[in-house]
């Protein structure tokens, strides 16, 4: 089990978090290679459908990251997203997905190191939870 690498899908906003991830790369900061990145224009574009579809597909974890409040390239996208994130987290956890499977962060374009730390933390949290098992159990047609 120790060589199992979590598969985490990451929805990153183009202007801040994606750039921050890129900065981590060019700065040669080491972080776990567990993310599959999906670039979006804004964290406000993140639809609950994307997150739940990712869980349906069996991703072990989902990370959603955007600009810090006040710094959104589209001014208010991340403010609206912030409200949605709270509800998504509440519903997903109430349904019975383990807390920590879906996580959110604000990472700016200049925060390469923070991005690496976020990935490391999220990867470690998911590693402790183990591979995604909710959808595997549900894989049958009656």
């Amino acid at each position: 089990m120790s060589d199992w690498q979590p598969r985490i899908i990451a929805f990153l906003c183009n202007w801040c978090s994606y750039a921050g991830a890129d900065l981590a790369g060019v700065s040669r900061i080491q972080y776990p290679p567990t993310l599959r990145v999906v670039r979006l224009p804004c964290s406000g574009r993140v639809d609950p459908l994307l997150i739940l579809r990712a869980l349906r597909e069996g991703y072990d974890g989902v990370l959603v990251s955007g600009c810090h409040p006040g710094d959104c390239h589209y001014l208010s996208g991340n403010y609206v997203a912030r409200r949605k994130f709270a509800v998504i987290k509440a519903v997903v956890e109430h349904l019975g997905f383990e807390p920590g499977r879906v996580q959110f962060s604000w990472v700016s374009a200049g925060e390469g190191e923070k991005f690496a730390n976020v990935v490391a933390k999220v990867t470690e949290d998911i590693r402790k939870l183990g591979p995604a098992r909710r959808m595997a159990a549900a894989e049958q047609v009656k």
Partner: protein
Amino acid sequence: MASLAEKLRDCARGLLAEGKADVVIGHAAGTLPMRSAPCFVRSAGEVEGLIFDHTCGANLAKYLVKDKPRGKKGEAAKPEKVALIAKGCDGRAAVQLVVEGQIARENVIIIGVPCRGVIDPHRLGEAVGGREVLSCRPEGESLFVGGDGFKEKVELREVLSECCLSCRHPVPPVHDVLVEEAVEAPGGADEFAAVEKLAAGSPDERWAFFEREFFKCIRCYACRNACPMCFCGECFIDQNDPQWFGKSTDPGDTMLFHAVRVMHTAGRCVDCGACVRACPVGVDIRALAKRAEKEVRERFGCEAGVSLEEAPALAAFDEDDPQEFIL
């Protein structure tokens, strides 16, 4: 002293006669015991059929948006003026639809009626052990229920919809007419008790609960179709490019269909319970929705349909919204 039904009919008659409403949407007696049918009254002569009692479970606000043509240019027809006989939750749904731009405020007349709870046919069935109910006579806080070879007394609270037991709005907070003053709602129960009970358990326990509950689902979409807040021209579940979730009864797909519907109605749902009553197989559809409602209420202080001035919770924001969960 005129009965509630008589006052209702007078009101409807007046609105139609004065041309203030083109149609009055209300409830009429159904063809089965303890069931009513939504009805559309367009002339003073048809008003006699209107009733209001514990059987009026449909959320009539649905009919403000049902079958509405969408996305067509040049809609020349003048929109109808609709008068809605609204219990508290129906009225809040109508207000929410106005706030969301689905109907113009001047085209809907909210006739508030004080609701004392509506019966959930599944709970009624359970209360009599699955036997067919042929007669039902309310008396105070009880119901005298009869069927083939039996006659029993059940407590109203045993058979009312769960949402009615914690109702805080027996009349619509926003209304044009109030047919009668509100009496005490049958509420009193803690509306989030079930949510808290599940939340106190483990994720595995919650998953097992929802898996079991949604295993019953036959994907008929009666819940979605009964809901006034579900008016999208194309529902996400019907999209096939991309197809988000399968349309079979696969438990994973089914659970996530309901989870997404909860998220799409978060902050908009008025907890009328029409979805639960519409479900032909008795799924507890509210169990997950109440969690979203709790979050919206506690985190953002928002409640659907109580004010025409309030923007929908998830379409608005405050710069100081809490974000303790964000890294």
